[in-house]
């Protein structure tokens, strides 16, 4: 049918140009939806701010976060020390600023690690079903059956100490959660006619999974991933508390919570402010995630 002369002579160039412009505008329209979503923009601003603090924190710190003055230990917030002092007389604000870099890294890398591997195995299990599904998911069940912190500790003893290894261990133990969510979501759309249609026209399996199935099941995955950032930060704290992962005196939000929890009743600000830092970070990722989900959905786009 491509040999139909009448249609080949259609005046096309202008039209194609218009089409190209429209394709470009698809990204623009996504951006407009995101921009119109105030909550998502708040999230984006906070994340930008956090990244800025992570990179240029050294310039913003009012005090050295590692030099304490024991005489000022547990001092309440004041004009000089806005967020108060911790048990060793170190400025909490400076420590929170210094910890931003580590906490963000832990949260983002651990989730990215778990998300990508979990998505990979989850989609393979759901798509091919049968024995493949059985083997992958039973292995995931084994991982889930062991308390995740215990498993992470086991990994740490095998890998050795250090923040990088803690990130890998935490990422690894959360793989099954993502695999399960991805698998369940894929099962719900796998039999749809548009997936069948994609098979009939000769698509490769990987294209069907990544182009046709995954974009249609993004919502639960995005929500889980944004929440996963907070649990990754807290798990790192737990590992640090056990002497694995982030070691004292290094400032990290989770370990600040851990080491300050004994002073909760007489100096609540020691745990309050690092806790707020974690909450704000998680909230920001969550808001942005929700906004992204809406912006990626053509039904909600103008």
């Amino acid at each position: 049918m491509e040999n139909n002369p009448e249609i080949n002579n259609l005046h096309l160039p202008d039209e194609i140009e218009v089409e190209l412009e429209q394709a470009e505008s698809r990204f623009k329209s996504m951006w407009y939806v995101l921009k119109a979503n105030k909550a998502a923009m708040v999230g984006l601003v906070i994340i930008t701010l956090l990244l800025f603090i992570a990179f240029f924190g050294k310039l913003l710190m009012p005090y050295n976060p590692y030099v304490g003055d024991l005489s000022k230990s547990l001092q309440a917030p004041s004009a000089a020390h806005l967020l108060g002092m911790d048990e060793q007389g170190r400025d909490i604000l400076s420590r929170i600023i210094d910890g931003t870099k580590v906490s963000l890294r832990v949260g983002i890398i651990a989730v990215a690690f778990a998300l990508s591997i979990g998505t990979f195995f989850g989609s393979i299990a759901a798509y091919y079903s049968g024995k493949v599904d059985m083997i992958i998911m039973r292995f995931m069940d084994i991982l889930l059956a062991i308390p995740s912190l215990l498993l992470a500790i086991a990994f740490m003893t095998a890998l050795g100490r250090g923040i990088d290894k803690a990130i890998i261990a935490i990422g690894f133990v959360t793989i099954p959660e993502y695999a399960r969510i991805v698998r369940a979501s894929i099962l719900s759309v796998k039999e749809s006619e548009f997936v069948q249609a994609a098979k009939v026209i000769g698509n490769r399996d990987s294209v069907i999974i990544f182009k046709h199935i995954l974009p249609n099941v993004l919502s639960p995955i995005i929500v889980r991933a944004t929440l996963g950032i907070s649990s990754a930060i807290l798990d790192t704290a737990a590992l640090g508390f056990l002497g694995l992962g982030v070691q004292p005196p290094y400032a990290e939000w989770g370990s600040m919570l851990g080491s300050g929890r004994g002073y909760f009743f007489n100096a609540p600000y020691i745990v309050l402010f690092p806790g707020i830092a974690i909450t704000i970070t998680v909230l920001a990722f969550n808001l942005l995630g929700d906004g992204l989900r809406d912006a990626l959905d053509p039904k909600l786009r103008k």
Partner: protein
Amino acid sequence: MSEVLLEVKNLKKYFTSKTGFFGQPLEHVKAVDDVSFNIYKGETLGLVGESGCGKTTIGRMLVNLLHPTSGDIFFEGTHISELKKNDHKKFCRSIQIIFQDPYASLNPRMTIGDIIAEPIKINKLAKGEELEKMVLQLLDYVGLASYHRNRYPHEFSGGQRQRVGIARALAVHPELIVCDEPVSALDVSIQSQVLNLLKDLQDEFHLTYLFIAHGLNVIKHISDRVGVMYLGKLMEVADSDKLYADPKHPYTQALLSAIPIPDPMKKKERILLSGDVPSPINPPSGCRFHTRCIKCMEICKRQEPQLKEVEENHKVACHLY
């Protein structure tokens, strides 16, 4: 009659409905049980039957979405399992499908243009500017405008979406298109538009259709020959005119008597079928229809009738003939 395009021989598809502890199959749903038919080049073969009689399963097997339990499919004389890898790809391209539900058959995240361009890209039929041209051509063929191509499926009505589905099937120059109840999800006024579009396209591109439907009037409108299915079996195959004028099988007679006549004064004797369709897990012995047949004989309960030619181009599976 012209050349045979597709030949189906003793096609069976059993789905396992119950498995034992070690995964061994215990019970089968006999969705398609020993069906044979030919499709000739350029014709439209209609396939009618109640829900669950296996007509959609046959369509899915032809486009390779399901693998037959047993039986042979010959395409242009070649057994499809004997095709080499390259030929196999070409064969897959040659048979396309239009789905029943236009709301479910288009990826909601892709634009209409991308949906139509995808099969062309995958099969490397064109790229760049040529691809753009082909997409615009296809949109034109199915009666959509070029500005529609940057829109998403949810912006269209059911009839328009079905047109997109048709354009996608046409994109790879197929020879046979399986139309799996393509109009049953549409309004009556839109149904005729889509049916006429299918007819026009058939004339223009010399397409062959396997048209699956449960609406007898739709089938009559579009088919050259009609096959009537019941519980996974083909009961009667005949030229469309013959079948509607002189149905042989009691099941076909009952189906045709159920078509309403648009004339309130005209009285028509209706054959009312009693009972439900038996379960395809455990179909009745002998003729599958004997539990509901008004002309049931003793032999029908014991012996399964074979599909045999009783008149020229008129095959029936019934002990009456």
